[in-house]
């Protein structure tokens, strides 16, 4: 299990590095999918299979696909890749990278020196879909309703902002989220 975790973690990190260094957006997005998949594996090793599935479906599926759609709609060309290359000059990213590195160093240091709380007595951290579902529709049901409202806000906003001459986008945006029904449930 541990080995799986470490491999998946390494893949995730590497894929993410690839994401942030690609000039071509589609390439980057494909790496992003890899990264998400790797994280899904990590979830599995962490004993959260349901989440692993959601990660794949929603992140790697819905969200990335949505972005790809938009990219396609904007019909990005070869020049945009060149442009991207030009934007990613080392002198431009050195400063921010340094800042981030400081932050990372601090965070890592803090995490490493921090004494972790002891795990609870109950052994085994496997939390299955059932437990999650019970919690979600038990105590957290209000949260579900609230996320419905959240999605409604997102939809209304996207609808208003995305409205353009081209009807196509309009329809895409409207259909993108299946959770819409839930928002109406409140």
């Amino acid at each position, binding site marked *: 299990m541990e080995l799986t975790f470490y491999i998946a973690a390494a893949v995730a990190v590497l894929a993410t590095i690839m994401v942030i260094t690609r000039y071509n957006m589609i390439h980057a997005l494909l790496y992003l999918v890899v990264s998400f998949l790797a994280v899904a594996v990590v979830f599995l090793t962490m004993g959260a299979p349901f989440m692993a599935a959601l990660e794949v479906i929603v992140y790697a599926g819905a969200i990335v696909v949505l972005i790809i759609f938009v990219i396609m709609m904007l019909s990005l060309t070869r020049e945009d890749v060149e442009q991207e290359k030009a934007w990613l000059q080392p002198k431009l990213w050195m400063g*921010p990278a340094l800042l981030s590195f400081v932050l990372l160093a601090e965070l890592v240091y803090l995490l490493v020196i921090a004494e972790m709380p002891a795990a609870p007595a109950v052994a085994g951290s496997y939390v299955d879909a059932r437990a999650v579902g019970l919690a979600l529709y038990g105590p957290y049901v209000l949260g579900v309703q609230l996320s419905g409202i959240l999605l409604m806000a997102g939809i209304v906003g996207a609808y208003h902002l995305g409205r353009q001459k081209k009807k196509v986008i309009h329809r895409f945006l409207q259909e993108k989220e299946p959770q819409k029904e839930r928002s109406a449930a409140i």
Partner: protein
Amino acid sequence: MEELLWLIPALPFAGALLLVLLGNRISRALVSAIGVGSVGISAAITLVLGIEYLTSRPSFIRQEVWQWFDVAGFSPSIAFHLDALSMVFIFVITFVGFLIHIYSTEYMAEDKDYARFFACMNLFVGSMLMLVMADNLLLLYLGWEGVGLCSYLLIGFWYKEPANGYAARKAFIITRVGDTAIAIGLFMLFQQFGTLHIQSISTEAVQVWTIGNETAVIIAFLLLGGAVGKSGQLPLQTWLPDAMAGPTPVSALIHAATMVTAGVYLIARMHVVFELAPAAMMAVAVIGAITLLIAGFAALTQYDIKRVLAYSTISQVGYMFLALGVGAWSAGVFHFMIHGFFKALLFLCAGAIILALHHEQDMRKMGGLSKKLPVVFYTFLIGAASLAAFPLVSAGFYSKDQILWLQLAGENGNIWLYLAGLLGAFITSIYTFRMVFLTFYGEEKTHVGHKPTWAITVPLIVLAVLSFAGGFIELPHNFGHVVLFSDFLAPILPAVSIVPDFTQYEWMLQLLAAVISLGGIFIAYLFYYKKPELIDSIHRSEFAMAVHRFWHSGWGFDQLYDALFVRPYVYLSKVNKSDFIDSFYTFLADATQGLHDLFSRSQTGIMRNYVAGIVVGAIMILTISLLL
């Protein structure tokens, strides 16, 4: 009659008020009536009161008009105090003042601001009366300052000329320097005695202080400071020659009856304190001696007739100080009175001359006036004789002689003071008769315009009579021994104690004084009438001319003060006109704006920078978490 006491100062004040209110809307005749009349009635009341006072001889008369204010035991009143000393002063002020007022009706007849002139003159007389009649020092201070104000207004009467304004301000400011000293003296007196009532202080002082008490000395010196300022004594004498900028009657009033004698009055009035402070007494005498010499020498070199008279005033007041300084109180006051007469006379004569010569004041352009203006000539001669202490027949001889004699005979006397006085007398007679010869003899250089009429001649004659006869009320021991004046003052001012066995030399000293005086006159005659070329030969000498210039400028005091005080003050003020403290606040404001610019630059509008901002914040927070 005693109830009328308050009217003496009130009438001139009322006259002034009336003239201010009515201003130029009323006729000149009415203005004269109010102006002259108010002082005239005051003089009349003074006369009546004086007679009554002489007959009944109370120690003093006090009249409280109202309580001025009362704060925690500090309760001065508007109250008048009449005793022999103030009597003398009131007499001189009202009578001489009255005469000068009469004289002014003619002298100022042509002036546009006739009403203003009389308003100020009345105010002047009123303030001076207030000064000498005050029963407490605060009221005295009121009069004291009022005199300063009036001198300012009158010296700068012809205000269009900036120089006059300068002279006026100079007078006011310099005398105010002295006033500051008095004020501090008053604070100390109040702290000591809890009151500023003069009589109380006089009675308390002897009980509280022993002779030479430090506080007493300080107070005496502070009072002296004030006296020096008003009386034009060293080192605050510089305003007085410039004060000639005002109309001549004003000069007469300032020099004869009012202002300059205020210092003499103050010292005489506070003699108890001074007697307890021998050092201050000595200072008074020394100041008097030095001043009389300096002013004498300066007078020698002046060409402006009024300036000569001005320096002579300084010099004569120096004699008074000399007298007061050795404790010869009544001699000082006596000289004050006589000086009041003859100085008023001289000034009024000078005024008549100036008026006749179309406002020409330079003696070099005068001459041969004895024929044209006979009344003026003879009265001037009497005045000059008095000033030069012409032996036996002039009042000035008796008063000055008394002072000189007491320098040796008095217990506090001192041979050096005597010699200074003697030298002063010599110079006095030189410059006095220099004036006489330059003005009235020789050939006529300027056409005589205005001939004086009665309003000028009557005051001249009256004053001439007083200058001539005034001396006979106080004659030396060996000389009739009339002591009317000192007897009159005896209850107020202690007699000077005479060194025993000195009386027999008195006639020698008198002779010496007479010789000195006559010698001075002779030299003047020689230089300025008989052989004017002698002067020219002197003028050829470089050194003599330097000395001449030095004396002419009043021993360079003006330049000294200019460099020492005036210019630094003006420079300090001008250089800091825009207030350097303000620049500190301006700097604050600028710095804030600078910070604003700095911060504004961070708002680039570029999102990535904002992200960086958040990251920096995160780093900051984590760093704090790490370090603490």
